[in-house]
C-alpha cells in the first residue's frame, strides 16, 4: 500500500485536479467558471507530462560537467519538458481568445449565465 502511494500519489493528485476542472466545465452555469475549469484540465495534463518525465536519481536537463552525458539515467527526459513548454504558452493564448469570445458574448447578451443566455438566444 505504501509502495502504491509513494509511486502514484502524483498521478492521483492530477486525477483530482482533472476531475475538479471537469466538474467546473460540466456543472457550473457561468461561462467564466467553465473557462476556469478548462484551464484546470489543461494544467492537469501539462503536469502529468512533467511528472511522467521524472526519474529517480536524475538531475535537471542542463548539462552538468560532473555527470556523464552518455548515461541517460543521470538526466531527466527532456522531451516532455520541451513539448509542455510550448503547450503552456499556447494555453495562455487560447485562454486570451476564449476571454475575447466571452467579452463578445457579454457585449451582445449582457449576461454570462448559461440558462439566461439560452433564454435570450431564443
Amino acid at each position, binding site marked *: 500500500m505504501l509502495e502504491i502511494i509513494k509511486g502514484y500519489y502524483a498521478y492521483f493528485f492530477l486525477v483530482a485536479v482533472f476531475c475538479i476542472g471537469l466538474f467546473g466545465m460540466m456543472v457550473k452555469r457561468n461561462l467564466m467558471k467553465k473557462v476556469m475549469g478548462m484551464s484546470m484540465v489543461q494544467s492537469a495534463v501539462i503536469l502529468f507530462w512533467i511528472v511522467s518525465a521524472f526519474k529517480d536519481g536524475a538531475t*535537471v536537463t542542463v548539462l552538468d560537467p560532473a555527470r556523464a552525458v552518455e548515461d541517460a539515467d543521470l538526466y531527466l527526459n527532456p522531451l516532455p519538458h520541451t513539448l509542455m*513548454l510550448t503547450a*503552456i504558452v499556447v494555453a495562455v493564448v487560447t485562454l*486570451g481568445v476564449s476571454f475575447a469570445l466571452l467579452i*463578445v458574448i457579454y*457585449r451582445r447578451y449582457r449576461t454570462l449565465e448559461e440558462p439566461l443566455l439560452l433564454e435570450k438566444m431564443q
Partner: protein
Amino acid sequence: MIEHARPFDLAADRCGPSSSPIIRIASRGLAPLIQIIGLYVFFHGHYSPGGGFQGGVLLAASIILLRMGLGFANTQTVMPSGWTVPLGAVGGLIYIGTGFFAVLCGGNFLDYGVFPMPWLDPPHLHSYGILFIEVGVTLTVMSTLVAIFDHLLDG
C-alpha cells in the same frame, strides 16, 4: 455603412492611472527589474532554464504591470498599442527568415549548420542559430500577450 471605431479609446477610459501612490511607485520600480530578469532569462536560455518563451512572457508581464499601474494612455511610449501585432509579425518573419536563410545557403529549412560563418564549427553555428530564432520567438510572444491584454481592455 460600416465604419471602424477609433481603436483603444475605450481602453484609455477604462484603465486610468491607479489612485494609490504605492501601486504607481511600486509598478514603476518593479517593471525595469522584471525586464532585466526577462532579458537575462532570454539570453541565458542556452545555459540555464529559460529561453524565448519564458523571456517573452516576462517582458510582457512588465509591460502589463506598467499598463495596470500607470494607466493605459501614459504607457503608450513604452509599447505603443498599434505596434504590438506588427511586432509579432516581425518576430515570426525573423524565425522564418532564419529558416530560409539556411535554404539560401544550400541546406535544409532551419538547418543552421550551413550558415556562411567559416570561423565557427557546426555546433557553434547551431548555437547561434538557436539564438536567432529565440529572438523571433521572444518578440512574438511578448507582443502577442500585450496585444491580447490591450484588445481585451478595449473590448
